[in-house]
């Protein structure tokens, strides 16, 4: 697979939404392609930042945070 194809799949790769075959192809590509690896890292960090936003309690509730 070419870099352009790989990069389109990086979000699905991060979300474990790819079938085994494609996942392995990307794994192999990432071992040798610094550019795609860097893209994956920055995308993963971006997602991690978004995931870090914690829940708020709605007004008038006393439910504990999850």
């Amino acid at each position, binding site marked *: 697979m070419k870099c352009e194809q790989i990069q389109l799949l990086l979000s699905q790769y991060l979300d474990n939404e790819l079938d085994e075959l494609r996942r392995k192809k990307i794994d192999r590509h990432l071992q040798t392609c610094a550019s795609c690896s860097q893209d994956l890292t920055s995308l993963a960090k971006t997602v991690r930042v978004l*995931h870090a936003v914690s*829940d708020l309690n709605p*007004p008038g509730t006393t439910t504990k945070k999850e």
Partner: protein
Amino acid sequence: MEQPARTKTNLEISNSDQPPYSWEEIVRTHQRYIYNLAYRLCNDPHESDDITQETFLKAFENLAGFRQEASLRTWLSRITVNTYLAKKQKRLKHRSIALEILPVPDWSGNPERIVIRRELRWCIHHILQHHLPRNYRVILVLRDLNRLSYEEIATVLGISVSAVKSRLHRARLAYRDHLLKSGCAGLVRDYSCYCEGVQEL
């Protein structure tokens, strides 16, 4: 949040596969999730409360028509997104958000850490609100903040799963580019100096 007035008993949904559940139970189970979805979409605590109430009111009024083809959470999420979009169409003005009014999770400790978290939260929500197209904001909130599956998002937005995949990826790339371009030095520097703060935000 106030609940719709009832005159007799709990409204119950029942079919042969699932036990009946009450309106109170529905609200109790999903209120927090829906409030947070609304808050992340509009970034305004008062408006989030309004959207949450409106969502449950609409759900209450249409509960008989809920055919359980999707999960209740997905159905409520769809109502929430549609309510938000309808409100948004009414007023399309760019608003700045005062750092001070942003709610911060309960935490009493080092004041410096509170400031860091406020700044991070501000950065995250500011980019979502003001630097991304609305369809990118909605899909990022549904997936990365409210953690819906691709299939659930497709149902909420009425689009195909493959459209979800491509839109989500474009949205994440746009978000990443704005993070990198933003003035939030902590995030630009490889996120490293605020990592701990981000984890606890």
